[in-house]
Every structure is written in C-alpha cells, then in structure tokens.
C-alpha cells in the first residue's frame, strides 16, 4: 500500500491537485457554490408547494390547494420566492461567476460580476413573437389588432413585442452561455485591470469612486468585445441568438451525454477512487458534478415548479446532482451509514465497534469523516473493494428505478445533511416510492459490505495499520 501511495503522490495527486487548484475551475466551483443561498431558498419554496399543492391530490380526490385559504396564499408567496431565485438562476450564476473569476485574478470582484452579467445579457433576445393560425376574424377585429401594433389577417394573428427577456433565457438555460461569455468578458476585464489600463483619479477621491472609475475602460472594452461578437454571430447565424445556438450545439448534447449509464457510473467510480486515496472527489470533479449534473438539476426544479412531476418526466433529466445523494451517498460518500450498521451487527472488533458507535450520529446527517478516518476506510485494503462497488450498485439501482419510471426523477434541491430516507423523499418532490428505492439500494450495499466487515474480524488491528504504512 505504501508503494501505491508513493506512486499516487508522484503521478496522480499532482494531476488532481492541478485540477482542484486550477484557478478558473476553482472559480467555477465557487461560482456554483455562491448561488446556493438563492437556489436553496427557491428549492424550499418549490418543495413547500410540492407538499401543500402537488402531493395531496395523489391521496385526496378533489383537493385543490389554490382554492384553500392560507394554503393559497402560501403557494402565492412561494411563487414570488421562485421568481427571484430559480426562475433567474442563470442570471444569479453569471454574476457569481464573474465575481469569483475577478477574485481569482485579484481585481475588483464587484466589477467582474457586473461585466460578466452585462456581457452575457447583451446577447439575449429582448423581444417575443408568436402566431395564432386558423382563425376567422372580422374586419373590425383585424383593424383593432393592427392598430395595437400586432399583425392580423383574416386567419392569423402574429403577436410581437420588444422589451421582454424570455424567462427561458435567464434560468438554467443561461448557464452554459454564461460560462463562456462570462469567462471571456471577465478575463478581458481582469487582464486590462492588471495591465493598469485604467482611469486614474487623484488620491483625494474616495476609494469607492476611484475603484469604479478604474474599472470603466476594462469593462467597456470587455462589453464591446462581447457585443461585436454578438453582432458578427447574428450575421453569420441569422435568426438565432448565441444562447439558442449554445443550447443546441453544446448544452443539450452535453447534458444528454451525462444521462448515460456509463457517464453516471464513471463519475461514481472516480469520486470513490478519489475519496479512498484521500482526495476530495466532489471538489476535484466539481466542474462535472455541478457544471453538468447541477445544471440538469436546476432545469428539473424549474420544470417541477411549472408543471409538476409530469413536466419533469416529459422534458427533464432522469439523473441529476441530487440523485447521487438520494440513492448512493447515504451517510456520506460510499454509503457509509450502511457500513456503520453492518459493523454494529457483525463486527467482533472492539476498535471497529467503538468507531461505528461514535460515527452513527454524524452518519445520520451524511457526515462520514469519523468512519472514513476512524476505521479507517481511507487506504484500507480490506475496504477498497466494497467502498468502490457498493456505490456503483446503489447508483445503478437508483438510476434504473428512475429510468424505468418506478420512482420520479430528483426535482428538488435538498441540503446534503438531510437524513437519507427523508432526503430522497423530498428530493423527488415527495414521491413516497423514493425512500423505498433508497432502502433497496441500502440493502444491496449492506449485502456487499457485510462479508468485508466479517473478513475484517480476522485481521488484527496492528496488521491492518501496518498495511497502510
């Protein structure tokens, strides 16, 4: 094991370290983390609506939360919370992204956030249009509609207007465009700031004013570069915004790829491998976990708010960031709450039982440092195989149960410290079948862990320790 550790330190850890310490990727991770207050508040609103509006009709015929006093008002208030959070999650992210990138470069963070937001919004559509066909309109109606600014014929009405940004341009759909435009514009801004191409004011000017003025030239250049790009793009690809193009050519294919069983298993395996060798898996893999599966989750939450589970099933994603938490990482990565139970039931080793007893409390809330380092699992050859295999099996169970329609897809964001069964129940928009799937996944993990716990009974604590040295 010592040779393996040395090999890892020499060849593997530097790569993981470069990925985990790469300032743009760290900024991206922090940008996603920075949106959590908003996305979590929005998720709470959606979840409460799920419980008081969407869940009861499954059990009570004729239930309509929108017609019940107090419930109706709560639903309305939750709608406002959603408006300001998940409905514009992309807009919140693009500011956070620019802010964190500017921070990584050591320049004015607030201006970085503003530049990123402005440059991204500059390329969005500000108008809407729609046509109704197959109508039978009289002359008076046609004249009134045309007078109002829309276009009408005897059979069609074409409605249009300027000054409207579609909500679909500000929600999860904005993420990939924001990642590209926000990145380029903020980098231009930061480079010019660092090159000192700024307006300099006398020292007597208050710092806030001085800082804002210093950002004028870099921000203007960054915004003009983005705008020239949009202009050229509109000539090359007429009738399509850059966002629409990114959605069609990058976002949807990438999100589609993430839905494959192979991709899900690969991510699961890598997270486990990283953990086992003492590397923070989700940190290193944050660009994938948050940048792809996290975006898919926000899409699902928004779809749920708009049309409940039916719309998620129709247009949403089957496997998202929270699916890992719901069906595999119960008790923490590796599904270690199951290991704790297995040790309490089958282990004859005093050291194992002591650690397991101490780990129960944190484990219920998915905190597994005590068992990971106390047992330890990290670099423990006996635990290597089940630590890798159990999550793969439990993810597979959750994945195929979702694909087969046995359980609704995860459509809510739930804090990862939520206890296992409650987590999957809430994450699926209060689907009562989700805790059952979690239980099946747990039982399967249990079957995998038990033989290794029993095998560890035959290993002397000292020899296990020396295996790690």
């Amino acid at each position, binding site marked *: 094991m010592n040779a393996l550790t040395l090999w890892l330190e020499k060849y593997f*850890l530097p790569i993981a370290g470069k990925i985990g310490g790469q300032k743009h990727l760290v900024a991206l991770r922090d940008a996603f983390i920075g949106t959590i207050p908003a996305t979590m508040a929005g998720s709470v609103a959606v979840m409460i609506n799920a419980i008081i509006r969407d869940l009861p009709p499954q059990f009570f015929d004729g239930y309509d939360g929108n017609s019940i006093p107090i419930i109706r008002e709560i639903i309305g208030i939750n709608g406002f919370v959603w408006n300001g959070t998940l409905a514009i999650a992309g807009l919140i992210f693009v500011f956070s992204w620019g802010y964190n990138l500017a921070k990584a470069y050591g320049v004015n963070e607030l201006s970085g956030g503003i530049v990123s937001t402005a440059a991204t919004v500059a390329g969005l559509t500000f108008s809407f249009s729609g046509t109704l066909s197959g109508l039978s309109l009289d002359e008076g109606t046609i004249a009134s509609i045309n007078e109002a600014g829309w276009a009408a014929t005897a059979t069609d009405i074409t409605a249009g207007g300027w000054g409207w940004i579609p909500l679909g341009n500000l929600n999860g759909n904005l993420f990939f465009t924001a990642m590209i435009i926000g990145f380029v514009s903020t980098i231009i801004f930061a480079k010019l700031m660092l090159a000192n191409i700024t307006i300099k004011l006398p020292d007597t000017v208050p710092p806030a004013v001085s800082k804002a003025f210093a950002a004028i030239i870099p921000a203007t250049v960054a915004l003009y570069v983005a705008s020239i790009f949009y202009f050229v793009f509109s000539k090359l690809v007429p009738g399509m915004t850059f966002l629409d193009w990114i959605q069609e050519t990058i976002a949807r294919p990438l999100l589609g790829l993430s839905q494959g069983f192979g991709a899900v298993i690969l991510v699961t395996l890598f997270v486990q491998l990283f*953990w086992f*060798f003492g590397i923070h898996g989700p940190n290193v893999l944050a660009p994938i976990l948050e940048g792809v599966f996290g975006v898919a989750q926000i899409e699902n939450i928004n779809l749920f708010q708009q049309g409940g589970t039916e719309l998620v099933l129709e247009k949403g994603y089957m496997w998202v960031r929270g699916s890992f938490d719901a069906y595999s990482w119960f008790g923490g990565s590796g599904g270690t709450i199951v290991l704790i139970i297995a040790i309490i039931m089958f282990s004859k080793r005093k050291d194992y039982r002591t650690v397991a007893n101490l780990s129960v409390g944190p484990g219920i809330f998915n905190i597994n440092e005590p068992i990971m380092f106390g047992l330890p699992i*990290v670099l423990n050859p006996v635990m290597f195989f089940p630590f890798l295999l159990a999550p793969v099996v439990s993810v597979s169970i959750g994945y195929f149960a979702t694909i087969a329609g046995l359980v609704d897809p995860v459509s809510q964001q739930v804090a990862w410290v939520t206890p296992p069964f409650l987590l999957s129940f809430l994450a699926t928009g209060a689907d009562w079948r989700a805790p059952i799937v979690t239980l099946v996944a747990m039982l399967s993990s249990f079957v995998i862990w038990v033989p290794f716990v029993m095998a560890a009974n035959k290993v002397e604590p000292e020899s296990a320790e020396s295996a790690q040295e």
Partner: protein
Amino acid sequence: MIEISSPTQQDRIIELLTAINTDDVTFTFKEKKGISLYFETNASDLEEAAKIAKSAIKAEPWGTVLYFRSVPCN
C-alpha cells in the same frame, strides 16, 4: 496533541506544520500511526490548534484537494 489523518502528502504536512512558529502556536511532530500523524502543540486550545493546522494545509496548492482530518487528541 492533535491528530492529522491523511493518506497522502504526509511528509509535506510534517514539514509544513513543524515550520509554523507563531506567538500563539507551534507544532512538533511526535509519531506516525497508519494514516495518522500526531503533533504536540503548545496551544492551550487544542480545537483551535487543529483548525490552524487544517487551514495551513488547505492553504497549500497540494492541500486544496486533500481529504484529511484534523482533530484534537490526548
């Protein structure tokens, strides 16, 4: 005494922590057991000393991706 559990970068952790020498806290490497490293410290508040050690490791380029534990112990 504090315990740092980390399967990798143990030499660097020892080097880093023993080099810390502020008015408030110093660390002296005592022993290694498996993945755990034990350090004596002059700090009266062991919780705080463990936090200082954790922050110092996380501040290193190689420490950002480490999954490790820093806890007080007897």
